[in-house]
Structures are given as C-alpha cells and as structure tokens.
C-alpha cells in the first residue's frame, strides 16, 4: 500500500533521514521505533508533505506522493495524529472533529462518524462544547486520534500517542488503535518510543537509529531480539 523508497530529508545542511526504505501492506500495523532525535517524526512529516523530501520516492497505492501538497495527500486517505497532539486550542471538541472531516461532503456519514468516535471515547461526548485547549493530555490524545479518524483514512499515522500519558490511558489508547485496525481494516503506521507497547500490537517493526533503518523484522521477533531488548526495552 505504501512504499517509501530511499528517501533523504534535510533541515538546512543537517541530514535528518538517510536513505530510508519502508514498506507497509494493507491492513497491517507497523511500528517505527527509535530514540529521541532518530528521525521518527521527520519520517511522518515527510510522508505528509510538510517537510520536503530531497531524494527518493514515496508511493501510496501506486501513486507518487513525495512532491504533492499536504492537502492533496490527505485527500488520498492518509491522516496523521502528530506528536504533541496539536489540537486546535480555541476550537471546541466538536469543531476539532469537524476539521478532521474538512475534505468530506457527506453530511450524514460525517454525523455517523462523530457518533462512532463519541462511542469510542465517551469522554469526548461529555466535553463536546469545551475548547480543545482546556482538555487534559489524555483527552487531547483521544481527540487527536478521533480527529484523524474523521477523515476516514485508509492509512493512519500515529506519532507517539503514549507520550506523557498515564499507563492506564496508554493501554486504553492502544486498545482503540487495535480495534480501529481490526474493525475498519485501517492500516496503521505507529511511531513510538515505548517500544514494548508498540511491538506488542504491531505486526512488523522497523528500528530507526540516527536517520537510518538499522533493523526490520516481525514484531515478535524484534521483541525477542537481544539488541532491541538492550537498547529499547530496558531489559
């Protein structure tokens, strides 16, 4: 479904991504793990067209997207939950969800999807008229995921959804990610520092080290790998 081939990305003169190649098949959950500053967020931002790619190609369902504008890429069915949630702070919860469905015109279906995400996260339904900026961290993460789902993406990109959240909420959010993947057959590309959690729900994983892919394998094999254990699982 998604083929990232040898992409390199620069910030000024500093190379953030070096020859990254990642394949994602339809219906999969794949995870990209790595330390701070390895280039995980840059990978997602390059994918979405926010950070320009210097060389290499990104194909989504056979279409080259590496030179497209971000709004075109969203319209193809790629949605991102960015790092730090990036909720629109002065829009209400409901308006944030409406923004997620910005490119859609099917009013009745949008209404259905709003009910669907309220069902996934009842907390959001309670706070629908509250401003996004006044929500707690966990609620903002729920809203960020819901907002991305409102676009009915076929590929959902998640950037560190566990960051700064209590373990109980992290568990809840990971359960939802799994549920969305199974029920809607949404392909998930999960970027995480919490390698343990990520590898447990993912099918396959990639390890990113200072801008390079250093390892790739099935998730359970990576979980058992000694190097990964030492470096990322703290065992």
């Amino acid at each position: 479904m998604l083929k990232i081939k040898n992409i390199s990305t620069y910030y000024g003169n500093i190379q953030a991504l070096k020859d990254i190649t990642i394949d994602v098949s339809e219906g999969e959950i794949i995870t990209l793990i790595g330390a701070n500053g390895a280039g995980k967020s840059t990978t997602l931002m390059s994918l979405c067209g926010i950070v320009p790619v210097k060389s290499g190609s990104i194909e989504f369902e056979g279409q080259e997207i590496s030179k497209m504008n971000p709004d075109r890429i969203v319209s193809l069915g790629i949605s991102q939950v960015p790092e730090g949630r990036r909720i629109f702070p002065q829009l209400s919860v409901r308006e944030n969800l409406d923004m997620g469905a910005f490119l859609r015109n099917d009013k009745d279906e949008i209404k259905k999807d709003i009910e669907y995400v309220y069902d996934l996260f009842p907390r959001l339904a309670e706070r629908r008229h509250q401003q996004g900026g006044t929500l707690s961290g966990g609620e903002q993460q729920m809203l960020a995921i819901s907002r991305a789902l409102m676009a009915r993406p076929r590929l959902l990109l998640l950037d560190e959804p566990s960051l700064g959240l209590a373990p109980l909420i992290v568990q809840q959010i990971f359960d939802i990610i799994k549920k969305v993947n199974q029920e809607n057959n949404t392909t998930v590309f999960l970027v995480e520092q919490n390698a343990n959690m990520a590898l447990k729900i993912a099918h396959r994983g990639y390890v990113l080290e200072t801008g390079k892919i250093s390892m790739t394998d099935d998730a359970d094999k990576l979980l058992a790998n000694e190097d990964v254990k030492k470096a990322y699982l703290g065992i």
Partner: protein
Amino acid sequence: MNLEYFFSLFLGGLTRGSIYALIALGYTMVYGIIKLINFAHGEIYMIGAFTSLIIGAALAMSGMNPILIFVLACLAAIVYSAAYGITIERLAYRPLRKAPRLSVLISAIGMSIFLQNYVLLAQTSDFLPFPLVLPNMKFLKPIEHMMTTTQFLILISTAVVMVLLTILIKFTRMGKAMRATSQDKDMAQLVGINVDRVISMTFLIGSATAALGGVLISSHIGQINFYIGFIAGIKAFVAAVLGGIGSIPGAVLGSFVLGLTESFGTGYISSDYEDAFAFIILILILIFKPAGLLGRKENEKV
C-alpha cells in the same frame, strides 16, 4: 457642557472608529494567519478610494442616478482592491513564506512605498475633489447638524460588515479553516486545508473591507490624494494593536476606543494634537498591556 456638542463629537468618534475598524480588520486578520504586519494595507485603502473616484467620475458623465453611481463605484473599488491584495500577497509575501519574519516585513514596507509612488506618478500629488456625494436623506433632517448622511451610511455599512464577517468566521467552512490555520498552520495542512487558499482569502476579505472604508471616508471628507493611506493605515494599525493584534473583536473595540478618543480629544482639548492622541494611546498600551485589550498573551517557546 453642551449636550449637543457632546453628541456630535460622539457620533464623529463612532464614524472615525468605523473607518479605522474597516481597515484594522485587514491588519488583524492577516497578522492572525501569517504573523505579518502588512504595511501595504493602508495603500489598499487608498487604491480603493482612487478606484471609486475614477469609476465614479466616468459614470457621472453618463448622468446616472447618484446613488447608483455610488454603489457601482463602491463595488468596483472593492473588487479592484481585493485583486490588489491577493496579488501583493502572491508577489511579495508568498515567495518569502519560509524566510525570517523580518524579511517579509521589509517586503511589506517596500510594497507600501512602491504603491504610494506608483499612484503619485499615475495620478497626481494634488488633492483631488471626491465626486461621489450622496443626496441628503430626508429622515436625517432633524439631526443633520450632528450626523450627515455619509456618517449614517458609514455606521450602517460598518455594522453590516461586522455581522457578515462574524457569520463567515463562526459558521462557514472557510471561516473554520481560517481559525484553524491561525491556531496551527501545519496541523491545518494535516487535516487537508489548503493554507495558500486560506491566506489568499484573508487578503481578499481584508482588502475588500479596507476599500469600502476608503470610499466611505473619502465621500465624507470630500478629497483624496496618494498619501491618505499612510496615516489612516498607521492609525488603524494602532487600533489593531490597542485591541490586541490577531483578535477581530479586539480590532473593532480598539478602533472605536481610538476614534472616540481622537474625537473627544480634538473637541475638548485641542485639534492641534489630533494625530498625537493615537500615538499617546499606543505608547500607554504598550507599557501597561502589551498584548492589547482583548489580546492573548503569547507564550514564546524557548
């Protein structure tokens, strides 16, 4: 104290405030979205006034109804200025989208100087009498000494513009996109908003209201020249800062505070200091409430 004098000053202040508000909207909306003080904005207002003067003078020769001429000239000014606003953004600001903010600011100042001199060369440096004068409305007869027809028209059109703009921003798709873009530009792109289009739209709306202000005030004062955009632009900018730049209700509030202060100041203190009042207020605001009356305090990330 003479009550009638007080009221005429009050209405005069509201009129000034309305015009400032029509211009300040453009400053504050553009700042809200791309964090740029668009110094060429005053020139858009001046170009609006000139367009209506030219179109109005041409139509007057055909002997049409003066009200119809006024409306047509007004529309022409709005369309022409909106096109100018969009073009300026394309040519002078968009190529600098990723450049430091100072570069864009300098580009804006350059644009302002260029447009002033362009109109100076293409037209004249003299004050031109403004031909679009409306017949007096009958129902205003009893209060004519306090409020003229044009003043009445200024107040009404400003109110209408404010209501329309509020509806646009609160409830329409484009309005929501504008609010989202001003709060987080990258995230707006990630939900599929075409940010370039939102920015063009912002310039279009801001330029259109400024042009309307230009036409209205010119027909109130009765003469224009190439320099009117400079002082009006600076004062509207002060009004926007006073209310909290980036905030639309703030710009409107700031404009009326400024308009009333100027009106009462010139009426009760001295008209010699007419232009000084704006800057006294600006200095006081910057000292005591740097974010403006309704502005949000920005927490700069270090």
